[in-house]
């Protein structure tokens, strides 16, 4: 049984959105990793993660995001998290991930980031 529900929405040729629902713990992080890997291999310029319904993320889940930081930078892919709950954001921020990841308030802001985020 997986605690996480991931919905993949391909918005356009260069934009994919992963909607996360539930908890990401050690076991469900494997699914997140799979979906994220597929998205990265899919050559989208931007990967948006909808965290509106994400209730919890464990260190294993953080590890998944972390493990892609280097690859994303190399491939010039922008990964943006939006709609993150305060409690979950806290977890990102304690670890320092919020400093190096793009975390914005909502989807609109995430879409706007296109012009400024891509370096």
């Amino acid at each position, binding site marked *: 049984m997986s605690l996480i529900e991931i919905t993949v929405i391909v918005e356009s040729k260069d934009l994919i959105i992963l909607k996360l629902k539930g908890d990401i713990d050690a076991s469900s992080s494997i699914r997140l990793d799979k979906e994220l890997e597929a998205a990265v291999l899919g050559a989208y310029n931007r990967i948006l993660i909808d965290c509106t319904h994400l209730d919890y993320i464990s260190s294993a889940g953080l590890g998944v995001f*972390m493990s892609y*930081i280097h690859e994303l930078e190399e491939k010039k892919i922008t990964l943006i998290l939006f709609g993150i709950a305060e409690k979950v954001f806290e*977890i990102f921020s304690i*670890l*320092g991930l919020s*400093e*190096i990841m793009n975390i914005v308030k909502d989807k609109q802001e995430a879409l706007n980031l296109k012009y400024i985020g891509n370096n």
Partner: protein
Amino acid sequence: MSFSKSKILLKNIFLFISILTFTFINFQSYFHFLGNQTTIYAYFLLSITIFYYFKFEISNLKKTAFSELIWRTFITSVVCFLAFTFCVSLLKSLPESKHKIFILGFIKTLLIVSICIFSSNGFFAFKKLLLYQKSKFIHFSWLIFEYSLIIGFIVSELTIFNYEKIYFFTMAFSAFMLFYLIFHQKWVAYLNFKSKIEALFFTFLISLVSILIAFYSWKLSIEPYVFGILYKPFIVITLLFVFSYSLVAFLVLVFNLPTSSVFEQKFEEIVSMHRLSDSLQKGKSEEQVYEVLLNSSISAVLADAGWIEIYPNEKEEKIVTRQQLYFGQVEEIKQITSNSLKLNLKSKEVFWIKSLKNEIKSSYSVIAIRYESFLSVPLIRADLVWGRIILVRETRDGFDKELIDIVINFCNQACISIDNFKLIQEAVTLERFKEEMQIAKDVQKRLIKEDLGIFKGYSLSNYSVSADLVGGDFYDICKINETQSIVLIGDVSGKGTSAAFNMAVTMGALHAMVVPGVSTALIAERANMALSASLEKASFVTLSVFIIDIITKNISFTRAGHCPGLLFRKCTNQVEVLNSKGMGLGIIRNNKFNQHIDTQNFNYEPGDILLLYTDGVIEIQNEKGEWFETNKLIEFLNTYATLDVIKMKERLKKELEYFSGNKEPKDDLSFLILKFN
């Protein structure tokens, strides 16, 4: 033991009495020292002792030794018959002499003895055969038969009661029972072909002997000098029983002969099945089970050759055992079946080909193999085909539905065997792992000490528990010099063994840097560098480093992704959250890391409390799924700051237990409490 011994003793007593009686009768016939009535009683005693002698003699034999039983009965019958005919011929041509009466008496007694031996031996031998695999009803009928016979015997022999009607009735009744009983010939089915032929011969001769004895006895009984003792209904009934039972047995054997090979075949199957389940119970090795399976299958379905192959993984296949086939032949048959017949041997189907030659005549002009019928049954475990048994026969259409079912049965049984075997192996391996884990736990206990020692300037208490046997949380306090000590707390992402390994690496790296003059930022930076090389891609470590100077009462700290510590200020009764910029170790694996951390300083006063913890503490959940959260820790500090550190630790443990209810902690959790003097 004592029971069978007493039986043997009884048997010998009967033998002794009968010999004694025999001698007595002979003297009596000559000397007449006692009346005629005595002779009759003596005959009665003689026949009854012979009867009982054989009852015990035969009951001592093994229950299923049918061939032996029939053989013995046959030999006894022949001996009796020879004695009988000898006596009869003597009777007819006895020369006149003064000892004639004595000799006549002797011959007569011998006649009776031989008839008694023949009939009682046959009677009890056939009783044994008749009652093999008896039902309750048959047993009951037999008892009625036997008792009515005995009653009739006593009535007729002793002439105590002159109730002829009772006597006639019991005899008629036992004769009637006899015709019901003689058709119970279950033992015949358990003989093999050879024994059946033997038994056929013997039963025929026994029935012949009995009819001859009966015939001559009847003829003799009308001779004036032999009084009618031979023509006793009791003897008639027993002789009739021996005759009719052996005759019916003969007929049953005749009609059973053609089907005896089928019975033997079925027996072979049962024996093979037993052998398979035996190898299961005795915990034989996997290879032995394969061998037993193949051999049993080959003999059960009369195959000429075969082999077993297993599929350790998707691509590999391995032939584990073969019979009557060279490796090359196996390969050849495999090639034919997979290439020209397109059989997918890894599917769950049972393949069954009547004639290989017919199927492939077009593509193979010359067929080196001589086998025609082909049968292949998959070995399935946990819904997965992990092997196959292949059997071939030289005759065409050699496997029918029945035989295939047998092989399928065998395979199922073997799969259970091998399943069991694997389970045991797995259990053994698991046990070894458990031991290893225990060792790992012991090692970890040495790294994460329960007793951290005593330090000047503050008192401390600590607590750590792992969700698994080993965990990724760590803490330690080391002295740098007389006035300074260093406090470390951290957490390796994930839990269990891999976390524990990374934790040990981290501890090693950190300890190496505890030298005078070191700064907290430098420790974090160096640790990041050391871990970047060894941590796997998705792992990271969080760390907080504090350097406490008890002279200046100053603390400097660096937070590298770890939960911020809490400082309780005694003077204000307020809790400060020691937050700062801080990146976890192993996230940025290059020299940009130091841009993401900083060092902060603060002064403390006596009575101030520093509470350090790992995320397991604040992420502990209650039944509603709510977290413990930092707020509760702050509340806790405000409430219990006056307690000493040991009591605070116990209090906090209780709080956490109370909060989580009966839920097991999902993550490792640890905390450290320092109270400054």
